[in-house]
């Protein structure tokens, strides 16, 4: 029975972890290239969730179709916010970009609230379930997991097999050196910020495919917190490191529940959170570059 629970939770954790990873890749990409900590990260996830909700309810379209739409909206938002605010603050003290992204997050939340209201919303996309014996997995969650893996792979290929990807990697390594070699560093910044936001907004779609309820303007806060832990886990400036960080986080979060439940008199959920942050501290202390990145 115990092993059955553990196996079930690990499978659920793996699926959730893939989505957590995808939801963190944008944060890592932006930090890696621009050294900007996007505190408004969760608000962009929320935008993706609302795009899905709107497309599903108004147009009756399958949430999978929302992924490219959300990515495109995210790209647009990224370019707008980069041009209006971030570009001008890149040389300013770090606190300025921190405050700017915080303000962008609040702006988005209040704007969405103005349009959709503060109600907690949801949609009901029934596409069946798979009974794995140890747990039941809704097909929508499986699609979300597969979608995350495909997007992570595409990002990996873009990074490693295209000229634009090489330019981004060169800026991550040394922006001055890249400039000397003729790389348009300003363009790379704009592109990276836009792709980072695009990925984050698209991850909002996948989040709702995993949990299609609780969609509201302030839903992003919890995801921002988790994204920071995952980003540190995978290496703050490594987007695919963040993806694997997400997988580890999801597995640890869900799997540890079963084990903590064996301890009498404790609330396992409280301990899973405790463990997540202990993990964060340990990684910061012994391997600050993240578990997947060389020292």
């Amino acid at each position, binding site marked *: 029975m115990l092993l059955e629970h553990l196996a079930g939770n690990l499978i*659920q954790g793996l699926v959730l972890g893939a989505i957590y990873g995808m939801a963190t890749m944008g944060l890592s990409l932006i930090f890696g290239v621009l050294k900007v900590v996007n505190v408004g990260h969760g608000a962009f996830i929320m935008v993706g969730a609302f795009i899905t909700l709107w497309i599903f309810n108004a147009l009756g379209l399958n949430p999978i179709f929302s992924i490219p739409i959300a990515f495109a909206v995210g790209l647009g938002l990224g370019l707008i916010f980069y041009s209006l605010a971030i570009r001008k603050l890149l040389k300013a003290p770090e606190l300025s970009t921190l405050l700017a992204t915080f303000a962008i997050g609040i702006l988005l939340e209040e704007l969405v609230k103005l349009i959709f209201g*503060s109600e*907690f919303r949801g949609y009901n996309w029934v596409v069946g379930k798979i009974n794995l014996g140890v747990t039941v997995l809704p097909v929508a*969650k499986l699609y979300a997991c597969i979608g995350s893996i495909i997007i992570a792979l595409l990002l990996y290929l873009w990074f490693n097999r295209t000229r634009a990807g090489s330019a981004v990697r060169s800026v991550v390594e040394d922006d001055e050196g890249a400039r000397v070699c003729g790389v348009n560093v300003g363009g790379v910044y704009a592109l990276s910020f836009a792709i980072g936001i695009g990925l984050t907004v698209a991850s909002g779609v996948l989040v709702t495919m995993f*949990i299609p309820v609780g969609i509201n303007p302030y839903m992003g806060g919890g995801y921002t917190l988790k994204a920071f832990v995952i980003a540190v886990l995978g290496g703050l400036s490594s987007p695919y490191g963040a993806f694997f960080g997400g997988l580890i986080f999801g597995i640890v979060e869900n799997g540890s529940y079963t084990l903590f439940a064996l301890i009498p008199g404790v609330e396992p*959920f409280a301990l899973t959170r405790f463990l997540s942050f202990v993990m964060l501290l340990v990684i910061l202390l012994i391997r600050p570059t993240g578990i997947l990145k060389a020292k």
Partner: protein
Amino acid sequence: MKGRFSLIAISLVVILVFIFSSSLWAASKIVIGHPACLSGKYAKAGEQALGGVKACVDWINNVYGGVKIGGKKYLIKYKYYDCESKKESVTSLIGRLITVDKVNVVFAPYSSGLTLRGAPVAESHRMLYMDHGGANNKIFRQGFRYIVQTIGPASRYHEGTLDMIHKIDPAAKRVALAYEDSEFAKMVMEGAEAHAKKLGFNIVFKRTYPKGVTDLTPLLSAFKGAKPDFILGGGHFEDGQLFNRQMADLDINVKALSLIAAATLPAFYKALTSMAEGVMGPSHWEYGVKYSESRAKKAGLPWIGPTQDGFVALFKKAIGKNIIPDYHAAEAGAQVLAYVLAAKKANSLNSDKIRAALGDLKFMSFYGGWDIDDTGLQIGHSMVDVQWQMGKRVIVWPPEGQTGKLVYPMPTFAEKAKGKLAVPR
């Protein structure tokens, strides 16, 4: 010359009359101050509370004819600010309402946490602090002297549900409790556990989950193994939706599911559609309750306020939306009525005197009964249990308040996925 003198004299008289009358006007207002949750996580409940207060203020001013105190007629003015559902805003806004706006009474914001946060500020100003959205009994165990509750206490939320299942299915003995790790929800769980044990139920699962949880799968998988007959749980709106949705995802079927705070709101069904069929929730008030002037007379209680339909009409006018109010609106509105009755009884606007009058006050309104104990805890109000049936909320408990029969056991999630609705036999 004489004409000029007359003109000056008349002008002076007009100015004096204006100043005098405006000072009279200013003095004839009772100001209710409220750090309302109009944005942030409690915005939905906050909007309802705002509408409820405005509806009853409208009724007092325009139907009841204001409040007569010491032979003088007072109209009620409602002064509110958005506290953004944040604790730090609540304390500063209460301070502002008392010291700058000079309000006569402060209405607490929504939720137990925010209510508790504001209580010491009101207390330090010896200001009456009326609680319409903080159900946690612990608020009333802190020794505060100026706080008075209208919402029913958390410890009683699931008593009706347990009584109902005990009566209709004596064979159902296995109950699982899974609540949010918040002061309010834990108090509900404490009360449910005590009542369940009193009625002879076996608690086969008891766990909490953290606030802001985004995945309940580990907890729900764990209680699947406990094979409960029914589940009581929840905390606030977002986790209630998640609870129901993930039970459906994991195919966990029980005879009854009752979730606090979430299941009674229209948005719950809107988000979950058929997955919410048959799900229940305790409510402080529901459209369809049968409180009336004649019922108050039978109970030997004074009646005040609009009828149920009157309240609904005033609420719609107040918020400018064609929606039926929920219990957040009703309890906030009933609080206005309690204050007015107590102020009249005290024949004063002094917080100490009104607090004393509230202690002796018993009445009935569209919201139901109202009575408090020495600590200010609400003891006169009974809750109802509602169930989603064919997309509508139906009052299924207590028997004397039923608007429909309980669907028990509720349809399984597989049946609901195929479109089966909770239809009473």
